[in-house]
């Protein structure tokens, strides 16, 4: 069994290595026709760009970084030239001429997309010619290796029950060197994905066949991300199933979150896209889905006929009605640990790291400041956007609409939710984003805290203050602080993962939905001690 496990690890690492190495494989040779068609497709006005790329790139056989570097260089040179022109006309006070120059500049933000698109056309060589084989060597080996690593746990971990032995002895789960390595890899992955997708255009070739089958088009980096996300979740869910096989709540919950990721977040949008409709994730609720009210989305939806309007209405109803009503009945867990994609990854890939959430009072304070600030940020952004959308203004309340959207997308959408939120799993735990950043979680949290039937009931006086619950709470809730006082846990941040209840060795915690009365229980003295302290306290106040 150990042998299979170790072999699995070797195979997995091989797959991962090939996947990583694939970035550097193959050549890119751009043909003049490809460039011309691209330029006209995109309506690029600057002839200089076409000229530079034609000179420096076309016809040459270049590696990944040489190719993307050359394209980006060409774009930069183009911009330099027009910047100089602008400065020149500015000095000469020839305003019209100056104004004309701007259309020839390429937005710096678009460099990677520009370079990505060209690379996608220009790719040749091994990967492009052997997409199926490459799929096997990367995804195939990765999945196979991971499963070979995971399945023996069925035997190695022993009988069903809590399996946290050695969590704090192993470098991978105790913030050791493996954890740091994983952190670096994940952070780099997100930096590339969000800001330098042209570097990993090779990855998209590997998934072209699957993308074609699903939506009729070639794979983008987002397709790669979505597919990878599902694959990782499925594989790590197998690990969850084995680890928590004694606990039906965990099994059902994991299945649910898998279902919503694969069907709602991945398949349905792809299929919609293949039908020429806007791809929409029906479970992704605003304000987590922060660009729902962005102009481009509103435009797309309003121009997509009945379906578009349905989505628009659905999106609003989801946020305003479905979400709070469900939270009232079931707690925010129905979303955060049963449906949500971010939660889904956290509960599968992130499960080995759940113990790293910070339980200190300071962290709790930081949490409340941060998450509510992000909520306000997202709401202000949306307000500004909508105002500008309907009035045609550029700014509202002195805030430029484009600026605030860009800032939010960059800071919150990319950095907080992605790079930090997932990249930092191995060191700061698996719910950094959900706890400190997610505006939807903040909203759900309000409802859960103030108007909900959900609570974690503490079983009278049975708590022995061991601390397992707090340690394994991914949301950094000091569960023990409540349990040892016999107090129920009613916290806005609780995502109802149920792990505190699972790891408790004394059967103290139960997640349940019940009447609101009695949800928050007064507990001056623990059950079992017949000193009636409440009486005492009350009498004292009276006298």
């Amino acid at each position, binding site marked *: 069994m150990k042998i299979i496990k170790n072999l699995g690890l070797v195979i997995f690492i091989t797959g991962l290595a090939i996947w990583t190495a694939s970035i550097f494989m193959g050549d890119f040779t751009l043909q003049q026709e490809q460039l011309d068609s691209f330029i006209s497709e995109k309506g690029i006005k600057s002839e200089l760009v076409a000229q530079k790329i034609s000179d420096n790139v076309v016809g040459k056989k270049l590696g990944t970084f040489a190719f993307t570097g050359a394209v980006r260089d060409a774009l930069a040179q183009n911009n330099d030239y027009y910047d100089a022109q602008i400065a020149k006309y500015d000095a000469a006070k020839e305003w019209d001429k100056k104004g004309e120059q701007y259309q020839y500049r390429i937005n710096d933000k678009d460099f990677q997309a520009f370079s990505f698109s060209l690379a996608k056309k220009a790719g040749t060589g091994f990967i492009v010619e052997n997409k199926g084989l490459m799929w096997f060597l990367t995804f195939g080996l990765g999945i196979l290796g991971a499963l070979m690593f995971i399945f023996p746990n069925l035997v190695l971990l022993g009988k069903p029950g809590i399996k946290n*032995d050695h969590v704090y002895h192993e470098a991978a789960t105790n913030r050791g060197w493996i954890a740091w390595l994983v952190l670096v890899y994940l952070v780099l992955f997100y930096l590339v994905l969000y800001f330098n997708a042209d570097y990993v255009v090779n990855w998209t070739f590997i998934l072209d066949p699957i993308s074609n089958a699903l939506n009729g088009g070639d794979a983008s980096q987002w397709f790669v991300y979505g597919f990878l996300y599902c694959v990782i979740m499925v594989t790590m869910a197998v690990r969850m199933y084995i680890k928590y096989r004694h606990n039906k709540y965990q099994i059902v919950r994991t299945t649910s979150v898998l279902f919503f990721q694969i069907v709602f977040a991945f398949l349905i949008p792809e299929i919609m896209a293949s039908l020429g409709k806007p791809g929409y994730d029906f479970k992704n609720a605003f304000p987590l889905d922060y660009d729902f009210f962005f102009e481009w989305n509103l435009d797309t939806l309003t121009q997509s006929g009945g379906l578009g309007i349905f989505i628009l209405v659905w999106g609003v109803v989801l946020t305003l009605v479905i979400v709070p009503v469900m939270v009232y009945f079931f707690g925010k867990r129905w979303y955060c640990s049963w449906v949500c994609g971010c939660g889904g990854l956290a509960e599968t890939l992130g499960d080995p790291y759940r113990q790293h959430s910070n339980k200190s009072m300071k962290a709790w304070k930081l949490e409340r400041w941060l998450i509510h600030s992000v909520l306000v940020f997202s709401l202000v952004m949306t307000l500004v956007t909508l105002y500008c959308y309907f009035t045609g203004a550029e700014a509202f309340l002195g805030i430029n609409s484009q600026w605030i959207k860009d800032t939010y997308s960059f800071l919150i959408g990319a950095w907080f939710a992605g790079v930090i939120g997932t990249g930092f799993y191995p060191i700061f735990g698996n719910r950094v984003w959900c706890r400190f950043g997610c505006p939807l979680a903040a909203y759900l949290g309000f409802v859960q805290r103030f108007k909900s039937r959900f609570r974690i009931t503490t079983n009278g006086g049975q708590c022995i203050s061991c601390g397992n619950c707090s340690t394994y709470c991914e949301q950094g809730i000091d569960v023990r602080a409540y349990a040892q006082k016999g107090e129920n846990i009613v916290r806005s941040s609780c995502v109802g993962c149920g792990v505190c209840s699972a790891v408790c060795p004394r059967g103290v915690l139960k997640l349940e939905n019940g009447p609101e009365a009695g949800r928050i229980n007064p507990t001056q003295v623990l059950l079992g001690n017949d000193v009636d302290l409440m009486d005492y306290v009350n009498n004292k106040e009276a006298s």
Partner: protein
Amino acid sequence: MQEHIVIIGNGISGVTTARHIRKASDKKITIISAETDHFFSRTALMYIYMGHMKYEHTKPYEDYFWKKNRIDLKRAFVDTVDHENKQLLLSGGEKMSYDKLVLAVGSKPNKFGWPGQDLDGVQGLYSKQDLDMLEANAPDKETCKRAVVVGGGLIGIEMVEMLLTRDIPVTFLVRENSFWNGVLPQGESEMINRHIKSHHVDLRLGFNLDSILADDNGKVRAVTIKETGEEIACNVVGLTAGVSPNVAFLKDSGIELGRGIKVNPMLETNIKDIYAIGDCAEQHEGINGRRPIEAVWYTGRMMGETLAQTLTGNPTAYNPGHWFNSAKFMDIEYQTYGWVFSKPKEGNTHFHWMHKDDNKCITIEMQEGTRKFVGINNFGIRLRHELFDRWLTEGRTTDYVLEHLKDANFDPEFYSHYEKDILDAYNAAYGTSLSPKKKSWKRIFA
């Protein structure tokens, strides 16, 4: 000057006292302990060794808590209590005076004078120091090729479980002929025997330790068994044959001692202004049918809550309610409410139900004839404390309890339910025809 209350012992009982005194008053509070700087949860020691947690995680309060609540912490060992001068002598020669003294000094592992019991590699499992010692003695299976754990109680089985996580082969020497059968009824005790064996433990029931043998360096090399004379080679011996109050340092203090520190229901010792609580306290007579010494977590906590009342001007007697407790035997959780004795008390009888998977069962003790409910042991099924506490107070019958068992189920959602199975078995045994009532929140919150 504020009255100075000094508490010896920073375990659950001492700390609970301090917290509740602070809630109700402004008195000066000092906690002295020789063990650790801060309060930690002794019950979690095993999880540190097993790698589920680190020592930090076992501290129920963050380190700033003590200063914020003006509870002074002093790391020192108290050599003598001089009650005439109301003074403590700390090792190192320092003195500390007190106005009121609370002894919350806990227990120490029993040693029954076995030859070799103080050898290198022989140890109990009680303190943080014991844990560190185990980490040194048994870091892995290469250093410790076999361990022998002596004494079949709750700490013994924890120690066995701990050692197994390091793949160390374990021989578990249990004096009784079935695990913990002085407390557990036969059916349960036997189920746990099977469970222990299924974890590949060399479980020896009905055997006593004879002596512990040393190698040339004074390290343990083997134990011998009394009944058979068999020698079992090992590198570590865990002595877990119960605990007793940690009162040696009080021998000549004038404080009345039995096995523990003698106290009355007000938790007062024979000496004015000195109190004792927790593991170390011994009631002159057990309260409400309880044992005079109750060495469990929550009783320490309750004594602490009670004593804090007395010390802040609200004299209160220790009056524990219905007995309850819990433990975990490797993978099987155990809870108990009320009294279930290993053999039914006179006039009582047992109803026992066991699930075919051999890791869930319950035993109910009830009065013969009336079938009045006396207590329940539940294994592998979680039950709601509050309801059982209420049912015991209300003097419900077992018929009533089983009919309403769904109300009391505390297992996580989606778990299989066994109320019907249990009732079927009960109906068959007692000729009743009860059926389980649907869960009712109304009744739960009544």
